[in-house]
């Protein structure tokens, strides 16, 4: 099926690989069964194409129906065993030395927090997970508002995020790369634009990333950047967003402390380029109608300064 992104048939994690194997087993079994039944039907009709060939005797017909049923039962039981075995294999991923992440689903973005026994070492980001290759990842899933579903087809099946419950999904990535995931439970207006990326990298690259994420935002180093920061701290941004190292401490929108390191914006909707960022801030409702981020009415100058400042948040 090629190098399709977000494809269940292009597994890069061990669980998705097991599921893919199960799929192909069921696919080929199904094909054989389907072809066999259609052949039987064709033969049945073919035999009577000129004139009625006479009803088969009750005994013969009963024998064949019973045999077909018995074969079906045996096949189905076999598939049942394959399914249970796959399920058990998937659940047997060891969680020793697992990286703990907490994902909270909002309408329509993902909050990502890297757990740490020391609270000051926790990292909060949004819409993007960096993970080390070859190490189990234990993600606890919570929902802030409605039911969402965490799904990265290349790596694993989906698990729902349900308000009032905490679900758990354990992944392991075999190869470095970028894997796209998407919300897979209808959650309202912008369910279609609630994607995220899992970026798998080698352990040391991952550790470097994590350490960098812990640092607060750098102070502005030019007048334009200073006025950009002023827009953040003295304007509407700080009502919803947090940028550590500034006075922006809002908790209802994605954490923007390292927004410039992300590859996409608006939960996978647009690429993270200055133009896209400008359009997004200027009129979010045009790109993602119904999103909770309002139009803010900034002037062109303020917008330019703001975007320049946000680009420094690496």
């Amino acid at each position, binding site marked *: 099926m090629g190098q399709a992104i977000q494809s269940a048939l292009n597994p890069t994690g061990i669980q998705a690989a097991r599921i893919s194997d199960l799929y192909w087993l069921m696919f080929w079994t199904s094909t054989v069964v389907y072809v066999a039944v259609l052949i039987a039907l064709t033969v049945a009709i073919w035999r009577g194409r000129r004139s009625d060939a006479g009803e088969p005797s009750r005994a013969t017909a009963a024998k064949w129906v019973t045999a077909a049923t018995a074969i079906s039962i045996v096949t189905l039981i076999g598939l049942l065993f394959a399914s249970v075995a796959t399920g058990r294999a998937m659940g047997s991923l060891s969680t020793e030395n697992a990286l703990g992440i907490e994902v909270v689903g909002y309408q329509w973005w993902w909050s990502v927090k890297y757990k740490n026994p020391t609270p000051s070492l926790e990292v909060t980001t949004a819409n993007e997970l960096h993970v080390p290759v070859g190490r189990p990842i234990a993600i606890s899933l919570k929902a802030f*508002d409605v039911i969402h579903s965490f799904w990265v087809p290349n790596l694993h099946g989906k698990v729902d995020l349900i*308000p009032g419950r905490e679900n758990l999904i354990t992944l392991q990535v075999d190869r470095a790369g970028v894997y796209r995931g998407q919300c897979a439970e209808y959650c309202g*207006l912008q369910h279609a634009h609630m994607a995220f990326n899992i970026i798998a990298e080698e352990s040391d690259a991952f550790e470097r990333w994590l350490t960098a994420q812990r640092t607060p935002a750098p102070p502005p180093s030019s007048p334009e950047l200073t006025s950009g920061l002023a827009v953040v701290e*003295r*304007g*509407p941004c*700080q*009502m*919803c967003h947090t940028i550590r190292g500034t006075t922006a401490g*809002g*908790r*209802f929108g994605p954490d923007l402390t390292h927004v410039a390191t992300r590859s996409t914006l608006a939960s996978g909707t647009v690429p993270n380029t200055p133009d896209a960022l400008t359009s997004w801030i*200027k*009129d979010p*409702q*045009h790109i993602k*109608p*119904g*999103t*909770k981020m*309002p*139009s*803010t*009415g*900034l002037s062109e100058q303020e917008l330019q300064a703001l975007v320049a400042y946000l680009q420094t948040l690496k």
Partner: protein
Amino acid sequence: MKTKTLIVAAALIWMGACNRESRRYKELSPADARPETVKLSTLQPGKADPPVNKTSPYQANAYGLSEGKRLFSAYNCNGCHAMGGGGIGPALMDDKWIYGGEPDQIYSTILQGRPNGMPSFAGRVPNNQVWQLVSYVQSMSGNTPEDAAPSRDDDLAAKKPENRERPRRPKQTGHR
């Protein structure tokens, strides 16, 4: 005659439903997001400026009221007004209003701030969101239509759902 009555009735129902049900998330262009200058006095030298909206455009709009409820929590109005029961700040679900409980008065209170602790949100909260908050605040005292007002939240029940509040008309008291 009968047909005309039917058409008028249908149009009224349609407009009513339209108003409650419209999801107006795209209605404001970015330029309109800036709040209008609010005046506390209607007296001005020369010719008076036209007054600010007397009522919130979201008064009977379910989406606007629901957004107002979300913002009340997101912008931490709960921190002082505690779901309408007050605490550090005055209660918003009763009929006593220090600075007036009419929509435009609540609007100017949010934008300008008030002595003794109410912050000024001008420049921090876009215009239409302020109106959404105004309507939600009014719903806490039951002054929005029952079918548009928010219902119970998916949270610990701290108070009656807004759509079950009996209307309490505001009385300006000038004091707490």
